[in-house]
């Protein structure tokens, strides 16, 4: 990868002096950014640094307060996305914008349907999407319902959609946050191919491993300003982290914990479920998590990890097996009762299950406290002064970047939304915490911080089950790892005695037993 750049005259795209404010918040300030033809340019920065905002300005979703955009040397002004689409700019959003109940063909052509206006010409649409689909190697029936597909495929549909509209500048906002390592590798092959064909790609990610694997150049944003732009070959992760955070001491390695592992807190025995959405059914899964221990669950997406989390918290019913919490059987209990008994849960789908996306930050933080209030007190005020003060204090303590507890959750950056979820769940002081993809889209500094809080919880005796598609996360945090494959536990190992490669093999279903390894 990253061959030296031939600076063929002027850049394809040039953003200069971009400033964008939302009321009191300055999301972008005097940002400069340029893009060469055929280049993959990574944009990195902490949560709330303004990456998404900058890209939305470029895509015409926001109007900048100041600054200019040049495409091919021509100064342009984008008032709406269709303006930028006309200039060959396409964006795959951090949160997908597909309509789950539409077919693949409908989603791809949505807003730019072939044929006469107002009528959906199915034949013409199927024909028109064939070329971009084959360019990406997507092999799908055009009438597949989008909501039934897994995330990686949905993402490919988003990219197809962008290509269908003739984009030569493709913006990918945290595309890998939802992908497994294998899917990420596939995506990178695809991006490289697109770049070699002459497309330019802007790539946003919090994972430096990926940035260094795929990008030709890296631009760092901090607090809405451009800090540096450098060729990947001329810099290293340490420098980039320092530029992103302004700190030199961010821990990127294993998290230090001093927790004594004691009694079994969570015990699952032979639990099975029916097939749920596009995840595999659980098939006789057994394991234990002890107090003070972190057990990681690794696996390629769709092998039952999501269902496992939901079965443990009680939103998916079991067909067989039992779950015990602190010696008490909770198999038949509902979510509320399980939570009351000390179970906490960070769901993997933040927008759907983690926070009330249209509600306020305080409404997101307080669910745990308001859920259990009983009887006549429920008629009382939900957010009296004490509650609001508590909310402000949590915002402070977890450094959630927001104008206040009254702000709508949807206006927070992705990482800050996640902090709401983790703050709420840790504040419940659980005896057992189930974390499903807890740091998806969260920046390095914040991950460091959140891991610290999780480590503190285990020091208090909390048992943690960590379900993650990010092997680095599992290797950094957990004491033991279980690998799930087709709804079963395929392998188990102490973290100190295994490696990325070995786990990767188990995840692909390789029949290597512990003794043989």
């Amino acid at each position, binding site marked *: 990868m990253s061959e030296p750049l031939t600076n063929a005259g002027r850049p394809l795209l040039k953003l200069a002096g971009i400033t964008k404010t939302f009321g009191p918040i300055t999301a972008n300030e005097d940002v400069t950014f340029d893009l060469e033809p055929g280049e993959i340019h990574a944009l990195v920065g902490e949560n709330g640094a303004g990456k998404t905002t900058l890209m939305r300005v470029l895509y015409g979703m926001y109007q900048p307060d100041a600054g200019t955009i040049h495409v091919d040397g021509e100064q342009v002004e984008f008032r709406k996305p269709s303006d930028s689409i006309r200039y060959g700019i396409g964006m795959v959003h951090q949160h997908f914008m597909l309509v789950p109940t539409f077919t693949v063909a409908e989603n791809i052509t949505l807003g730019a349907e072939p044929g006469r206006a107002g009528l959906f010409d199915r034949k013409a649409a199927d024909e028109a999407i064939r070329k971009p689909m084959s360019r990406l190697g997507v092999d799908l029936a055009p009438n597949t319902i989008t909501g039934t597909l897994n995330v990686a495929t949905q993402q490919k549909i988003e990219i197809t959609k962008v290509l269908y509209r003739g984009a030569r500048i493709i913006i990918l906002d945290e595309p890998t946050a939802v992908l497994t390592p294998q899917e990420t590798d596939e995506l990178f092959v695809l991006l490289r191919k697109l770049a070699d064909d002459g497309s330019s790609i802007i790539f946003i990610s919090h994972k430096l491993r990926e940035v260094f694997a795929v990008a030709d150049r890296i631009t760092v944003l901090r607090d809405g300003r451009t800090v540096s732009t450098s060729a990947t070959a001329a810099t290293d992760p340490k420098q980039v982290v320092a530029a992103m955070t302004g700190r030199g001491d961010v821990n990127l390695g294993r998290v230090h914990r001093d927790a004594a592992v004691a009694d079994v807190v969570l015990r699952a025995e032979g639990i099975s479920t029916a097939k749920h959405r596009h995840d595999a059914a659980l098939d006789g899964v057994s394991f234990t998590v002890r107090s003070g221990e972190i057990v990681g669950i690794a696996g390629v997406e769709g092998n039952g990890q999501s269902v496992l989390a939901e079965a443990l918290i009680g939103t998916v019913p079991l067909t067989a097996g039992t779950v015990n919490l602190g010696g008490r059987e909770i198999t038949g209990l509902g979510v509320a009762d399980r939570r009351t008994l000390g179970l906490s849960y960070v769901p993997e789908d933040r927008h759907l299950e983690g926070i009330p996306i249209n509600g306020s930050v305080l409404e997101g933080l307080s669910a745990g406290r308001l859920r259990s209030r009983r009887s006549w007190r429920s*008629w009382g005020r939900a957010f009296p002064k004490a509650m609001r003060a508590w909310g402000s204090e949590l915002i402070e303590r977890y450094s959630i970047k927001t104008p206040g507890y009254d702000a709508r959750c949807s206006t927070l950056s992705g990482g800050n939304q996640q902090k709401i979820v983790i703050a709420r769940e840790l504040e419940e002081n659980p005896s057992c915490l189930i974390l499903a993809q807890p740091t998806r889209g969260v920046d390095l500094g914040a991950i460091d911080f959140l891991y610290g809080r999780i480590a503190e919880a285990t020091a208090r005796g909390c048992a943690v089950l960590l379900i993650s598609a990010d092997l680095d996360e599992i290797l950094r945090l957990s004491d033991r790892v279980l690998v799930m494959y087709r709804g079963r536990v395929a392998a188990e190992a102490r973290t100190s005695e295994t490696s990325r490669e070995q786990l990767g093999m188990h995840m692909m279903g390789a029949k290597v037993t512990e003794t043989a390894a």
Partner: protein
Amino acid sequence: MSTSTTAGPGRRGILRRSGARGPGRATTRLASAGFTLIVGLAMAVLLIQMQGFEPFSTLAAGVQYAVGDPTSIARTIAWGLPLYVAAIGVAIAFRSGMFNIGAEGQIYAGAMASALAGAYLGPMFTGAHLALCILAAAAAGAGLAGALGWLRAAWGVDEVLSTLLSNYIVILFCAYLATGPLRDPSRQSGTTREVVDTARFAEILPRTGLTGVVFLVVALCALGWWLSEKSVIGYRWRMTGESPAFADAAGIDVKGSRIASMVASGALCGIAGAVLVTASQGRFWTEIGSGIGWDAVLVALIGRARPVATLVWVTIYCVMRAAARGVEQVSTVPSELSLILISAIIIAAAARAGVFGQFAAFRHRFLRTKGR
């Protein structure tokens, strides 16, 4: 970053722009409402002009008739009282994601229940009798709406369809009762027996129709607002409506909240029926609701299910209706034309509130594109 695909129209899309905060949004919303009203007024001027009347004096007469002096204000309010209660009721259900468009039927059920309680019980101490009538109405409405809410929560029977259909069933059943077994034999048309005097609210301003029920209505509106916007219960209901998956994962009782909000909604709509009987009509008759339930649904939609906005829109609506009656009295502009004009204003307001996007979401819910 997350696997959600929330951007598409879905049931939560109905109240997507909830939680609007900050002065900015409020002022835009006010400006937009003002704009709608001014356009409506301009259209009214045109309409009256076309009928060959002096538009401004005619309009002024209409407004005078609606809110010109204390008596007319009282009359206008008295007409709107059931609508206030019903609209708050509908808004509460909308807020928790339950589309209770069965308000009209619940009003009929409430009116029937209170008419029976008023006619066949008593006479007795008037406070107790009124309380009985109102409780009977609330129970009828709550039972009806709660049952449909339960069907939705437990069996997934879509409440849009079930409440819609319930209107026809309930209204026809009440009509059967009023023309058949419970008909007042001394009357020719389909009415029940007149309630005894102890089951009627006393007028507090003579010859305005404004009765003591106004205090009850104010209390119910305040209660509805508190319940839905301020209380812990309301928090659970709103979360259930806006983010059901979040509510579920957080351990909020989603089914319970759905049923409870429908019970509250139905109770309020039922009481609106009781207000019709005990404060003005004095009996049940087959056309007693006269579309108030539908008005309530419309107004709650325009008010985006926010109690305060809904109450403001009820007030605007009542004033417009009264002004239309006033215009009719001083000119030959027939009230049908005025009603068309009011409808046009409402449609404009609805468009501004994004109500049509909400209907698109409804459509989407029923007419999915075929695929596999």
